[in-house]
């Protein structure tokens, strides 16, 4: 009888609490956004950004409306503070698609799978949490992320990748093939999946024939609002695709004098249109970004100060707003953002943004201060060297030079590199060439942290801060390595392809890519724009390297077994033979035979016994010298007989 009132009270409390939270900002919400950006090499970048937020609850037993339960459970269970998982196919072209904006530093990822996570657990439990996390994610995303569980695959960078002393784990799987089976579970985390809203644009064939696509999942959770942030989990899902507008392809090639950018529309690059927003989304917006270089080029073409540049191109849909970057530092120009709200579109009136260029325009993207190339040196199966070459990109000083002049002329470069254990890097052989001259390492390295690899236990890791003069033309680092041997069952399938060295991350801590757009205070800023506003260091990844190692001939286990058995038989046979005989045994034996003294040796006894059984007197044993010709002739006869038989057999039946 006492139950109902308690129930009621509990229910009331719960309701009131949700109401309270709903009235506050941090209720569950979902926002979807799409950014489109023409790239200098006639391609189009599409960047989907979905953000789900859920308030962090204390008892952990709340019903979730929008936020994926799997993720929230995972965060609760493994106490993930921050995590990022990315699946990437293709390479981000830093030279053509830009290396100095938030897009490239946040969304350009190395090929394959990259996973890092910061845990909110004591240091000694981090590894266990990581292992569990990898297995969970592996199940969640149908990928072999569980291979990151083994301690040879991940490492714990201290400061070069992200400041998280001891709680960060980082692993990469460069060879992971990315396909729809990874995209579908990722889409399942969205409240509308790909049935409505912007995600309906994700036509699988057009995404997977793209030049680059990277699907990313970024998770931050704040347990308490100590840091001034709202407590809760923020799940950021992005998909970055670089597409080639296909329909124009046939026309524009071979009209080489016309450098008109291809015109495109959503329906031409994705084959689909947007039929309204996802009903569960708080906002649903499409942006078209014209980057700084393009805007300044357009201005030049027009010759006026007006920022619209509409004379150069034509949009099929009128933008709801035009945002201009608030630019204080870069004098070159500021990027433009056209905002379209999808709210007012529906099935009957789908949203199909199109862009038609009228005049040729050529621009280039902003480059990171140094362009990083990593490659292998040497040939053969024995040893080699890894080289990281940093080249200055400002050949025609288009890159931002503002910081550089003010900054006391120092260029900091963070290098973070993991090398699998079977590539035995000799870190003492680090050589540094600055502007084609061999320099002492100590003069330019501000900070270095090296964890040599342990065979079959942990990979080698190098974190380093280079302090280069800012007028540097090029800097090269080389590290020698020996190639190790693996045990036969450690070879992956297709071992003859070679082994991968995962990408190195190169970041420039005193260069920050951020874009500020004016915010109207009436509504909350869109998550993507606030992401743009966050100042993040310029980060780029280098190429994955392929090291050919010596591989056993897997196709010949039988031969190996045969040879080994033969060797063993020969060895043990002769060894036993030697061990069995005493020194001088043979001579004594011969002597005893010659004197014809019949002793009671078992063999003699046996032969005598058998002779008796047959009822014949035993023949005296013949000396070998006498018997050999007889045996020989018999043997020859037998061999001849066999040969004749064989020939006859071959002739008649063969």
């Amino acid at each position, binding site marked *: 009888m006492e139950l109902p009132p308690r129930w009621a009270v509990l229910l009331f409390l719960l309701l009131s609490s949700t109401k309270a939270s709903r009235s506050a900002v941090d209720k569950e919400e979902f926002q979807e956004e799409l950014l489109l950006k023409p790239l200098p090499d006639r391609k189009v970048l599409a960047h989907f950004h979905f953000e789900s937020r859920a308030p962090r609850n204390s008892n952990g037993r709340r019903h979730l409306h929008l936020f994926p339960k799997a993720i929230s459970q995972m965060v609760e269970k493994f106490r993930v503070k921050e995590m990022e998982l990315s699946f990437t196919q293709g390479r981000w072209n830093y030279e053509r698609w830009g290396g100095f904006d938030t897009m490239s530093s946040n969304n350009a990822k190395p090929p394959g799978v990259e996973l890092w996570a910061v845990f909110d657990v004591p240091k000694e439990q981090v590894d266990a949490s990581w292992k569990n996390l990898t297995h969970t994610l592996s199940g969640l995303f149908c990928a072999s992320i569980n291979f990151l569980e083994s301690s040879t695959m991940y490492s714990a960078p201290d400061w070069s990748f992200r400041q998280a002393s001891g709680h960060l784990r980082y692993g990469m799987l460069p060879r992971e093939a990315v396909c729809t089976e990874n995209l579908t579970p990722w889409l399942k985390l969205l409240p509308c999946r790909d049935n409505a809203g912007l995600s309906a644009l994700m036509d699988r064939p057009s995404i997977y024939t793209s030049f680059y696509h990277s699907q990313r999942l970024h998770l931050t959770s704040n347990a308490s609002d100590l840091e001034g942030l709202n407590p809760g989990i923020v799940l950021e899902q992005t998909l970055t695709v670089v597409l080639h507008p296909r329909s124009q392809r046939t026309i524009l090639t071979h009209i080489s004098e016309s450098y008109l950018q291809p015109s495109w529309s959503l329906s031409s690059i994705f084959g689909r249109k947007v039929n309204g927003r996802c009903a569960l989304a708080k906002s649903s917006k499409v942006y078209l970004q014209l980057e700084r270089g393009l805007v300044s080029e357009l201005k030049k073409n027009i010759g006026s100060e007006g920022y619209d540049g509409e004379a150069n191109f034509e949009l099929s849909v009128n933008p709801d707003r035009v945002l201009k970057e608030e630019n204080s530092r870069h004098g070159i120009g500021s990027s433009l953002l056209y905002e379209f709200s999808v709210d007012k579109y529906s099935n009957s009136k789908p949203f199909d943004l199109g862009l038609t260029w009228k005049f040729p325009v050529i621009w280039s993207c902003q480059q990171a201060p140094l362009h990083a190339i990593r490659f292998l040196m*040497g040939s053969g199966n024995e040893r080699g060297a890894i080289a990281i070459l940093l080249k200055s990109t400002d050949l025609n000083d288009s890159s931002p030079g503002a910081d550089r002049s003010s900054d006391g002329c120092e260029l900091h470069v963070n290098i973070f590199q993991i090398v699998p254990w079977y590539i035995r890097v000799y870190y003492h052989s680090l050589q540094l060439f600055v502007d*084609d001259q061999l320099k002492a390492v100590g003069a330019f390295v501000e900070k270095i942290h090296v964890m040599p690899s342990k065979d079959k236990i942990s990979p080698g890791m190098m974190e380093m801060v280079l302090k280069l003069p800012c007028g540097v033309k090029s800097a090269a680092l080389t590290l020698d390595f020996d190639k190790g041997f693996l045990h036969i069952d450690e070879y992956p399938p297709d071992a*003859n392809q070679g082994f991968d060295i995962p990408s190195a991350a190169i970041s420039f801590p005193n260069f920050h890519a951020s874009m500020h757009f004016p915010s109207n205070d009436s509504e909350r800023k869109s998550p993507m724009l606030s992401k743009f506003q966050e100042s993040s260091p310029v980060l780029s990844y280098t190429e994955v390297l392929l090291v050919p190692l010596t591989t056993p001939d897997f196709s010949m286990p039988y031969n190996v077994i045969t040879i080994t058995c033969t060797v063993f038989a020969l060895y043990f046979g002769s060894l036993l033979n030697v061990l069995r005989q005493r020194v001088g045994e043979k001579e004594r034996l011969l002597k005893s035979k010659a004197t014809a003294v019949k002793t009671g040796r078992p063999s003699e006894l046996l032969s005598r016994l058998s002779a008796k059984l047959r009822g014949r007197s035993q023949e005296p044993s013949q000396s070998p010298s006498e018997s050999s010709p007889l045996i020989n002739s018999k043997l020859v006869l037998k061999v001849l007989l066999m040969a004749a038989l064989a020939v006859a057999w071959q002739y008649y039946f063969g």
Partner: protein
Amino acid sequence: MPKTETGTPKMKPRPIVRLGIFLISHSLLVCVVCCTAGVLALLLLPLLAKNTYISENALMPGSASSMISNRDISEANRLASDLSGLNFEPQDAAALESRGILTKYMSDLGAEVSYHKFHHKPNQFHPLHFFSSPDSTSSVKNFSCSAHGLNTVGIIRAPRGDGKEAIVLVTPYKFGKRGATYKFGKSGAAETLSLSIAYTVFSLLSRVTWLAKDIIWFVADSQYGEYAPVEAWLRDYHLPVFTGLGTLNADTCIKIDDLYVFEQKSIAQRKISDGFRRAGTMAAALILKVADRNELLEDTLNIYAEASNGQMPNLDLINIVNYLAVHRQGLRVKVEKVLTLLDSRWLEILGEIFELLGKVARSLNPGWKFGISAADYIEGSATLASSLYYQALGIPTGPHGAFRDFQVDAITLEISPKVFPHNKARHNEFLLRGGRLVEGVIRSINNLLEKFHQSFFLYMLTSPSKFVSVGVYMIAFALLVAPLPLVAASLYADANQLDLGVKNTKSTPTATASDELDITFRSWKWLYAAREVFLIHVWGAAVLLLPYFICQIPNCSPTSSTVIWVFLSMLSLLILYLIGVSPSTHVSISQPEEKGEWAILKSATISVVFIGLLVMSVVNFAAAEIGALLLVPMCLMAQPLKLDMKVGKLRSFLRIICNVVLGFVAFPPAAFFVVKTIFEGFDSIDMGDFWNWMESLWAWNSATYIYIGMVHLPCWVLCIHILLHSC
């Protein structure tokens, strides 16, 4: 073999020992049988050749239909006409212009274009750098600005690939060096044609979506030969030098500014970085050439595969090219053969004999199919001979050799058109065929997930679709070499009057004390022989180094160089002989016996020949094989002429003749000239040819050079020494 002094029955040695003793005691018979069998096995090789097959299933050649369209071809034609429409008055400007055109076309396709500068340095012999072939340090110093070249490299990044691997397509092209002769000369046209084929493929590959590996199109500036630019580029690719060189080049030699000026003019305004661009690990390389000679029957494809020191690319690479060329494009595929062998009489007779034998065998049992027709046999052995020769020479037959030095499989495809295509339709058809062939090969390699490892690396071709694998051609060599240790052992035993326990079991008297001393003394006698052999080998090494000094003499013609070389070698041999080797030093100590001294010397020589040949067979099998053919009979036959003179029978007379002939033939220069006379006729003989030949050997770091100096020549000298021995 210790004997028991007692009267008991003799102990029976182990069977394997008995077998050995048996063989040694019948060494003469074994020699004859093995050598004949060895030569016979070599002659039988064309019969034993197997058909090639594609071993790696992932390659899947020809399983996709070709995608080259007429548009690619018309673009390529436009490129060709742009290139040939240039005004060739100032050569440098023409080179610049044509390079610019090429760059523009490449970058219009979306490729990353870069230039690669290299300095041609003529091959310098340096004894210390012999085996350290891909060294980077030596290239830094002393280059002259006149001898530089500029290669153009275009890279297509595979759209969805991870950039770990790359396929290289090489077309040699002489930028601007064609001058006025271009209009009529064919070479320029042929090169432009190869460029158009490559461009056709390149333009296709820039569009396709199936690429998994990056494509590098390397247009080699072939004004200093085709090998040098490829080699320089590969070295910079694999072993870059970070210090100093880059700035030095840019400042002094190349007019990079001009290039940029040109680029500015172009509408593209794309930056052409002078930086070295890379793609990942190279999976394979194709060198594409169009020959300027015309074929009689149909379009043919010549395949060149031999790299330095007899290394060959994986057989699968040749297989896919052969398969696609024959079954898809209908080209006639050829590999190099020794043409003079084709109409040699003895080979024909041999072929007929084998054919007859095959027929007989087939009549006995239809299942036995080892006979081939005489014509096939002749073709096969001519190809095999050329294969053997080029492998033995150790000089790469084309730019593909440079790739093999970095463990990249590469072959040269030389397409020669039937009629030089002047009319448009024929021209386009030729481009289409060539383009489809290259496309198919690249697509096959692109399919490959692992590197080439399935098929053979050690093989010889007897026709484009037939090969002899290592397991088969080893037999001939093994048979030739097998009698050497036996003869050495038997000679040693004879000379020391050792009793091997078989020949004379009862004749040996009991040893007295003085005899024992004699035996111990005799058993150490081989040291004198060993010393002599060693000294002669040191002399051989010295002879090897002589060309380095002769090269320093200015204005020396090949003929005079040869003469100087021979003279110096003889002189040093004489000095050596006077100092150390003269037999008088120890002849007084040991009483000359009936066979003694020369037999031990011969035994030591034969042992050294055996070891040398075995070592060489690991380094370069073909060279060892040819060496064994020359050396083994001579070494086995060698016997002091004096002995035979004394006897004066027909048999010994024959032996003298044999010895003299073999001794003459096995002398390297003599062998060279004999072969040259046989193949080219007597009138083309020139002393300088030998010098040139040897020079090319050391310039290409061929191990055959070392072999000739360290094994062949000393052993020949020792054999001559035995022949002239005063017993």
